[in-house]
């Protein structure tokens, strides 16, 4: 490794599984790299002045390649955000934060890993401190741009998040860091074989929303922030290899808005029937609690007809339009499911999955109170959440197949 001798901080054993940005930040600070020209001469990368170096290095394979070439190493696999996800995803940038998220204790030594960017990780696994995105003193964002007057990882208020001397004097990596990270990456690799993240096509997805879909295994479980714990309540988990929905349900209509003219629609009738059996806790209750009855205690119990935990109460005829984003999302979801397991599709569901999935999604969206809206004419007057909803789903094709959906 060239960097080991030619650059201070080039011993990467002290920074296991560091991110590309973490690598650059540590090297830049310890070698006093400030100007854009110096980044080019010492680290091989050519960042634009005042452009967020974190997002550039996370997203650009070209920059990663330039960096690894300059350092005389193979591009580490951990620089690819996709290896940090326990699911496959079409756009690797989607599920992580775009801005730098850090652990105060780690960043003091100039250490940053992609693990800290993941929405479903809210505390540093080995230090136990809350992950932050802003300066602890002034709440501004720390500098992540090359060529800025302030050093990387410092704040304009004067607070320097990194202690260069402490970083240079670091003798060992944190004893638990490499172990945890290796175990986490192994788990992710295992999960990616069967799990796929599905997002609403053409709609911006807030990465924070993915946190409700991912459950860490007991061996990797952390003391998570309240926000993460509560997010788990806002998701639907349904088993896809159970029975088909009742006959007569037509949830496959392809229209720009799905008009629900009256209560005779079999899909909505079915939702009503299951509402009291498997109502979820959380937002659905807040939205419709005053109008529909529900049985909170039945959450984890299978309903009589084999459906599980998607239903909610219906507010009684006021909502009449399905947002096109939901229809697009359902189409995407069904397409991904067909693509990922065509054999299961034909064997187990015999064509019945399509309406099943559609119904499950529609039902949950209905429970959320956001996809069926009486504001048919002018969506632009609605708040963002209602104007452009973007549900996401985690499709698991292992046995039993499971679909987790987060609405928003």
């Amino acid at each position: 490794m060239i960097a080991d001798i030619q650059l201070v901080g080039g011993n990467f054993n002290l920074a296991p599984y560091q991110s590309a940005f973490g690598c650059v930040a540590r090297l830049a600070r310890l070698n006093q790299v400030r100007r854009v020209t110096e980044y080019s001469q010492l680290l091989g990368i050519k960042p634009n002045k005042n452009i967020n170096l974190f997002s550039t290095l996370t997203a650009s394979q070209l920059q990663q390649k330039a960096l690894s070439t300059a350092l005389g190493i193979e591009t580490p696999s951990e620089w690819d955000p996709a290896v940090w996800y326990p699911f496959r995803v079409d756009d690797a940038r989607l599920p992580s934060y775009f801005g730098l998220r850090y652990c105060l204790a780690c960043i003091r030594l100039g250490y940053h890993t992609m693990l800290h960017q993941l929405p479903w990780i809210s505390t540093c696994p080995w230090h136990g401190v809350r992950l932050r995105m802003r300066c602890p003193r002034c709440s501004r964002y720390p500098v992540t741009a090359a060529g800025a007057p302030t050093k990387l990882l410092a704040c304009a208020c004067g607070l320097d998040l990194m202690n260069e001397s402490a970083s240079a004097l670091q003798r060992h990596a944190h004893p638990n860091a490499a172990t945890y990270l290796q175990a986490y990456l192994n788990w992710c690799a295992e999960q990616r074989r069967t799990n796929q993240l599905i997002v609403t096509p053409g709609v911006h997805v807030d990465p924070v929303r993915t946190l409700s879909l991912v459950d860490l295994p007991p061996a990797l479980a952390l003391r998570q922030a309240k926000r993460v714990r509560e997010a788990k309540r806002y998701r639907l988990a349904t088993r896809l290899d159970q029975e088909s929905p009742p006959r007569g349900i037509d949830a496959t209509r392809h229209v720009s808005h799905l008009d629900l003219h009256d209560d005779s629609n079999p899909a909505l009738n079915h939702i009503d029937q299951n509402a009291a059996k498997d109502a979820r806790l959380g937002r659905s209750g807040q939205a419709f609690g005053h109008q529909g009855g529900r049985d909170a205690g039945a959450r984890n119990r299978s309903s009589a007809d084999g459906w599980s935990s998607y239903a909610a109460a219906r507010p009684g005829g006021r909502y009449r339009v399905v947002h096109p984003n939901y229809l697009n999302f359902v189409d995407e979801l069904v397409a991904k499911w067909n693509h990922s397991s065509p054999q299961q599709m034909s064997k187990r569901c015999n064509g019945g999955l399509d309406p099943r999935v559609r119904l499950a999604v529609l039902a949950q969206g209905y429970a959320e109170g956001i996809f069926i809206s009486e504001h048919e004419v002018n969506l632009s007057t609605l708040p963002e959440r209602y104007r452009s909803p973007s549900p996401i789903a985690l499709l698991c094709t292992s046995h039993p197949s499971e679909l987790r959906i987060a609405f928003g």
Partner: protein
Amino acid sequence: MGATTILQNHPMHARHRPNIQTLPLLRMASDLATCLEYGRPSLRIIGDGRCGKSTATRILETTTSWRPFPIGFLRMVVGKPTTPSEGNFFREVILGLGMRATTVATPQDLLLRIIRAIEQESARAAADVVVIAIDTAEQLTLKDYAHLAKLQNHFLGSSVQPFFLFIHQSNSVIGGADDLSQLAPPHLYGRFFVDSHVFTGLLWDIPKEDADIQDACDVALALRQLDQVMKWPDEGGRTYTEAFAPYAYSTGWRLEKETEAIRERVENLANQGSYPAPKDWLMASFNQFVYHLLTKIAAGRNEFEGLSAQNIDEALLRSAYAGFENSRNRAAGK
């Protein structure tokens, strides 16, 4: 596998041959260890060109038995920038340490980078003291020493302390090197010029101060290393002398026993060259001399029984002994 085939793989045939532990090296290690133990800030190693100062420093860098406590070790070669300035000096230091340098960094940034490199070495070696060996230190000017003092000042109050080991060639300039110690102001003299060690080649005579601990001269003891200590393979192997001269070795012949014969031929060469018989043997020549004796003259031949005067002359010729000595004497104005 035949004896010849085995010898072809012998370390003496490698591009980088094993170093011989010599007394000049041990004397230098002893003085360095004493300086470190007493908390001195620097030591100047002064010696003729090609006598083995740099090699000795490299050996000390890779061995630990001589160290009074754990130390870090950085080694660099200083150049002479065309435009002397603080920035250019620190840039030379960075390049000398084998690190990458940029063209636009300020002197402050360069200085900080050197400080971080020293701290990093301290952490790597789990040591509080980092020896910074500066080769070709004869090129340093008083301003350069002032820059080094500035670097050292940054560590005041720090747990990490740099220790400067200057490798100074005494005959780098024909007629004698400029002695900066006479011109150095007290704050520089006290830091960098107080302690010095004269590094010699292998001495032909036993120094008076070592008479009670040394039973033979440096040359004989170096040859004894080949006879008794250096083995291949390291564990359970034959000594170098035994490997290359098996028959002679079995009859009791040893390289060390040829010391006086070799000295005689060396003095003969000095007489022919009309320069005084040298008091020591430069390592650059001695290593090649030994290489030629073992691999070309003895060479594993069973009929080899000992060295003739002709053999020694041939080895001296191949090792460029006369050339090195002529150069040294010319520099000293002899």
